[in-house]
């Protein structure tokens, strides 16, 4: 009789154990699947975004640009002695220059052609070079070795650096920003440090202000990387990004 109770208890115990185990395993599997799906969705979204940017930049460069240049050339071919007409032509030429300058900037912001041709490091150097003439922040890039990372990952790392730099310029009031990029055996490290006023990263993420930060997180997630932000009011901000290669 005692044995029977024992056996029944053990059996029920095992059954409950199996059910619990099954339940736990399912939850873990479900969670993993969820995470994977989430990442796939993010990747799809970002890929669409980047492709669209590339397409628009291409259109500006290949269709609108040459057309405008041609209009300007044609206007330059008009010969007139009438002072008023000359002025109108000159002014219109200047406007076309202005349009082209604006388009150049838009195209660059959409997708710097250097990234495709020369890779991450050159693109970052160029990006910083452009800003160092105009932005109030002095940006220094530190890179010790050549960086070799897969093409499809480069765009995300570049966008993250861009986002950090833009955040620093827009919100931190910093005077200096250091960016370090290094490639170690099987991972890429991006570290930045500014001397600005800092912020409460957690609070920022929760508020709608943190759109840029969320985009940073999404890109880190796509790359299966780790993003750490260390910031305190008045103590500057540090970003660490670690990406497995």
């Amino acid at each position, binding site marked *: 009789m005692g044995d029977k109770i024992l056996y029944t208890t053990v059996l029920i115990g095992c059954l409950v154990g199996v059910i619990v185990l099954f339940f736990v395993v399912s939850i873990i599997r479900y969670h993993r699947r969820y995470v994977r799906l989430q990442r796939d969705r993010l990747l799809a979204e970002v890929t669409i975004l980047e492709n669209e940017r590339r397409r628009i930049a291409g259109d500006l*460069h*290949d269709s609108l*640009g*040459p*057309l*405008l*240049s*041609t*209009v*300007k*050339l*044609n206007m*330059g*071919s008009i010969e007139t002695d009438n002072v008023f007409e000359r002025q109108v032509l000159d002014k219109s*030429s200047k406007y*076309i*220059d202005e349009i*082209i300058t604006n*388009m*150049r900037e838009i*195209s*660059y912001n959409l997708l710097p*052609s*250097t990234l495709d*041709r*020369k890779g991450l490091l*050159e693109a970052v150097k*160029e990006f910083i*070079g*452009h800003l*160092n*003439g105009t932005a109030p922040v002095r940006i220094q890039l530190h890179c010790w070795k050549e960086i070799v990372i897969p093409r499809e990952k480069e765009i995300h790392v570049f966008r993250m650096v861009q986002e950090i730099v833009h955040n620093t310029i827009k919100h931190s009031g910093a005077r200096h920003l250091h960016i370090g990029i290094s490639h170690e055996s099987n991972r890429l490290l991006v570290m930045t440090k500014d001397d600005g006023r800092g912020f409460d990263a957690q609070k920022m993420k929760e508020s709608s202000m943190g759109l840029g930060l969320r985009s940073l997180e999404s890109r880190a997630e796509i790359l299966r990387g780790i993003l750490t932000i260390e910031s305190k009011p008045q103590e500057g901000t540090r970003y660490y990004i670690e990406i497995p290669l």
Partner: protein
Amino acid sequence: MTSPIRLVIADDHEIFRDGLALMLSRQKNMTLAGQAADGGELLAMVRETQPDVVLADIKMPHMDGIEATKILLQEFPDLKIIALSMFSEENLIVEMLEAGAKGYLLKNADKQEILDAIASVVQNQEYYCRDTSVTLASMIVKSNFSRKKEVIEFSDRELEIIKLICKQFTAQEMGESMFLSRRTVEGYRTRILEKMNVKNTAGVVIYALKNKLISEKELL
């Protein structure tokens, strides 16, 4: 009367080629020897017509301007190639110059500038587009394109004006800061351009950086 300069233009946009051809066809001392829509066509066209100057877009399908430039200069070392760039992509311009192009123009350059560029390269001078940024200037200086250092003596006053030109001061502003008349400053400017054998401010900046008359830091 010297024989007219023979030109070939290469660009994958027909409209732009037409515009350029129309403008060039009205110049008395130039003739258009041919047009090409990509690098491959350009090679064939140059081999067939043997022009003096080629205006070539950097970005073209099949074979880009950089590749075509390398090949053409091996076959025709005296050929003068001017790069055309739509959006001043600095890295591409530097690559094209390193490949052997003699100068470059942005595609929104006006008639006079295009003619200036052609005249410069025919005389074996480099030509840098008027809109050259400081970043591009310093990239060109660091590249293995720009010519070797030269020993030309400049007076203190000239050196001072060179610095101001590099900093994009107008003749008026230079005059005010140096207590000289605008005319005097313009005279100095002309002499400096002549001495350096360049056509515009971009040329002065590149010359000054290369010969260390000014540092990159001073320009930023």
